[in-house]
């Protein structure tokens, strides 16, 4: 265990960092907001943490925290700016925001180190800190997926107009989502640049958008667990795929394409459907004569998306 831990430290770190990055896209997506601002926040967090550490020798926590606050504030402003946009247009606007930051970093002169980036951001941040931060984030997000707040967010995603008429403050939910996404992205970026001790404009690009998006899509977009599955798969896939050598990228592309086209709810969706089927089968057998109503309720399961709109939820059922 210990040798495995030491020899795979980099991969373990990047699993958790990618998870945070993927979550920064997944959180808006869960509320139906198609925003890639999390990628831009990653850049903000990475550069803020590196600059503060190199120039002012502040502790790692403070450096990352400053980046998170800055990115959250920028996220809020961005939410105000792009309030009119939705769907693909919002996606395009936020992608260009993120990529613009990359060019900005290249042209930042001494502050950002230009095209070569910054080196020597040495701090005391360790793998354990990364894991602890991720666990806290995941617990909070998992909590936000349950109960009244979770249902509110689901309603905003499935039908914003209906959500408004039910008294959900859709605009506020959207703004909150932008702020949370900014904070998550910056946290990932800050930790990454302090762990690697460097940051350069090449690390922020279109490929980051692709990576985060593929993790969510292959894993499943509607829950943090999907992002976690995706982050684990795509961080460890290169090690597994070493046997196919140079065709690694091709296999990667095929996986993403197949998942995107044929498994729209991701691996998590597949697992959930399988689990539901198993449960239904388990219940049907004793329910032959005894509990007819249970059977009726369980049959509604495929329409559980409707249940998200304030109807009976899974927890509420017997």
């Amino acid at each position, binding site marked *: 265990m210990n040798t495995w831990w030491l020899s795979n430290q980099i991969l373990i770190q990047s699993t958790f960092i990618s998870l945070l990055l993927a979550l920064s896209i997944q959180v808006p997506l869960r509320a139906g907001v198609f925003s890639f601002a999390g990628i831009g926040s990653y850049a903000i967090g990475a550069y803020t943490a590196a600059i503060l550490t190199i120039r002012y020798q502040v502790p790692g926590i403070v450096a990352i925290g400053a980046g998170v606050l800055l990115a959250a504030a920028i996220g809020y402003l961005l939410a105000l*700016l792009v309030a009119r946009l939705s769907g693909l247009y919002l996606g395009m606007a936020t992608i260009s925001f993120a*990529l613009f930051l990359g060019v900005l970093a290249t*042209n930042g002169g001494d502050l950002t180190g230009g095209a070569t980036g910054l080196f020597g951001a040495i701090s005391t941040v360790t793998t354990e800190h990364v894991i602890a931060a991720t666990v806290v984030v995941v617990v909070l997000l998992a909590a936000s997926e349950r109960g009244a707040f979770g249902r509110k967010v689901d309603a905003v995603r499935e039908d914003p107009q209906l959500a408004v008429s039910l008294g959900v403050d859709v605009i506020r939910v959207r703004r909150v989502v932008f702020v949370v996404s900014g904070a998550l992205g910056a946290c990932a970026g800050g930790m990454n640049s302090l762990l690697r001790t460097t940051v350069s404009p090449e690390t922020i690009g279109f490929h980051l958008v692709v990576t985060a998006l*593929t993790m969510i899509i292959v894993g499943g977009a509607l829950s943090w667990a999907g992002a976690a599955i995706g982050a684990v798969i795509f961080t460890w896939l290169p090690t597994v795929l070493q046997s196919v050598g140079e065709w690694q*990228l091709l296999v990667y*592309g095929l996986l993403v*394409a197949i998942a995107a086209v044929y498994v*729209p709810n991701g691996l998590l969706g597949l697992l959930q459907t399988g689990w539901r089927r198993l449960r239904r089968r388990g219940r049907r057998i004793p329910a032959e004569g005894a509990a007819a109503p249970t059977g009726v309720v369980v049959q509604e399961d495929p329409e559980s998306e409707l249940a998200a709109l304030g109807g009976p939820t899974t927890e509420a059922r017997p």
Partner: protein
Amino acid sequence: MAQDVLNALTLGSLYLLFALGMSLAWGTIGILNFAHGSIFMFAAFTAHLIVQEVSLPIPVMILLGVLVGAALSVLLQVLAFEPIQRRAVDHRKAELQILVGGIGIAIIPLAIAQRITKSVPFGYSGGSFSVTTYDLGFIRVSNIQLLTLVAAFGLAGLIGWWLRAARPGLALRAIGVDSEVATMMGVDRRRLALLTMAVAGGLAGLAGVLLTYYLGSIAPETGDAFLLKAFAAIILGGVGSIAGVVVGAMVLAGIETFVLVTTDGSWTPAIAFGLIFLMLLVRPNGLFGRQEVRRT
């Protein structure tokens, strides 16, 4: 100065050829194809592979690029986008899934080309065509530049006319407004979608071959850069508007050339992103876009 204008027009024409098909597909059948850049690159790349074996003249090379581009695009439509549109519960989900599917599929041709070329730029040195430059005193123009300009403006005009005047063009525009009602009016949505994707892919292939001749060689990664420029051109002009995409491509190329000539050029990549962002904030429908008809 005149030389810069000509170079900007050539660059704009290449953007135009690339963006025309994307804009058409996005504005009518609602497909924003993120694999367009990969199709563009792979068509040029296939032509490169063949010209290494046999020395071919430029018309055959162009035909090759167009055919490969169209074939890849139709394949993509049949294998990926059609199943997505058939299964998706609503329009918004389909849009998102098409975008993600395109991003995923775009990796495949790129991976193949990178593997074969080892990421070294490729060109058409094996072909029988040679670029000749005519010196007109105040301006130097090459035959490939002339060809690009004629092809871009000619095809944009042709497609614009076809959309406006021909019956299938009307049907295609009707799908863009409301695909269900259009289907009820007897429009064969599937066939028109395939045709649109074929045209889009063919245009991408043409742009790929012409760009490779113009620059001498391109790298497998060129497609991604072109994709983002095309977005800027489309958003600037307005989705689905042919006049819009012409103006968008020319304005983008003009500003880029201007910045490149007057500064050291490190800000050039930011222009496309800045334009997309500003345009979406100020006028999301673009300069020529119609008020969007939102299908719910």
